[in-house]
């Protein structure tokens, strides 16, 4: 067990499986265009299951593990308070409602996607969604903007993926060792 959960056992909150399920269910229902802001305010501000520092530490682990950040966060938070069963419960809570809603939307889309009005609507929404991804990428790049090493590897990744269309597995296998070596040598 981690030190934090050892401390949590002494003074931390008592979290039941039902708490985990319902809280993550609400996060899943509220997050339009991404759930990260909602899960932070639930964990840190509302339920106070984690301090701000614990949240940041857990999230940075979840950021670079494969899979959705918030999905991984649900697994880690569930595991921390209720073990393996808690991990499954929190993850199910997060996914269940969005899964049902997105399937309903998909059915509607299939029914009506040939209508000109729906196609026109989607051209608008798709352009907007592209803008949201662009903003997310820029926000993520901002903390790295004074780091020449990072900027070089950002550029190399964009060229490899978007222009040369190299499969992701090769991009990771080729660039990650070089990036790792550069991070060790340059110490930043």
């Amino acid at each position, binding site marked *: 067990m981690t030190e934090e959960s050892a401390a949590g056992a002494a003074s931390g909150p008592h979290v039941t499986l039902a708490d985990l399920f319902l809280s993550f269910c609400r996060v899943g229902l509220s997050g*339009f265009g991404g759930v990260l802001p909602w899960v932070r305010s639930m964990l840190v501000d509302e339920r106070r299951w984690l301090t701000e520092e614990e949240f940041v530490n857990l999230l940075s682990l979840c950021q670079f593990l494969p*899979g959705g950040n918030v*999905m991984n966060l649900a697994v880690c938070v569930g595991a921390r308070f209720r073990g393996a069963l808690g991990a499954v419960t929190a993850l199910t809570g997060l996914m269940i409602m969005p899964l049902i809603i997105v399937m309903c939307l998909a059915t509607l889309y299939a029914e009506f996607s040939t209508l000109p009005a729906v196609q*026109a609507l989607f051209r608008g929404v798709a352009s907007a969604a592209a803008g949201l991804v662009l903003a997310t990428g820029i926000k993520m790049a901002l903390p790295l903007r004074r780091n020449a090493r990072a900027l070089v590897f950002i550029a190399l990744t964009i060229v490899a993926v978007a222009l040369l269309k190299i499969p*992701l597995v090769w991009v990771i296998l080729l660039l990650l060792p070089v990036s790792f070596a550069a991070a060790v040598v340059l110490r930043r």
Partner: protein
Amino acid sequence: MNDQDVLAELGLRFAIISLMAIGGANAILPEMHRMVVDQHGWMSSETFANLYALAQAAPGPNIMVVTLIGWHVAGIPGALITTAAITVPPSILAYAASQARSRWNRLPWYKSFERAVAPLTVGLVLASAGLLILSTMSGPVSLGITAAVAAFALFTRANPLIPLATAAVLGLLGLV
């Protein structure tokens, strides 16, 4: 391919892709695009962008785009298989990592690894944005919407549903 082959292919490919999703759904968007549009021809680039927009417009994690891709290719069984394939392998890893984390935290290689991964993650998200812009731009208005929404998300903390809904209205009016 018969139905079962398609389901098996979906499950296997998305399970592998799930382990490459460092940085979440946006990081694997180009890879999914390459697989379902270029390689298998399961959908057009435009449909792919529309499904992504649909996932953005619905509540929940952005990774739900995977559910929609599975649904588009093989109906509800496809949706359930791709969702399970994208969820289960990373969750097992995350569970193992959450147990080991306090030991890694203090190791220098862990810090270096984090610094090495960060620019790749950012590059993948920006590459996704590039691919989405290329597949959605149909003229100055659609590019303008993309730029305006990006600026909105960068400079305000308001709900992203506001620009998405505005863009939907502009589309409905036939302006895009």
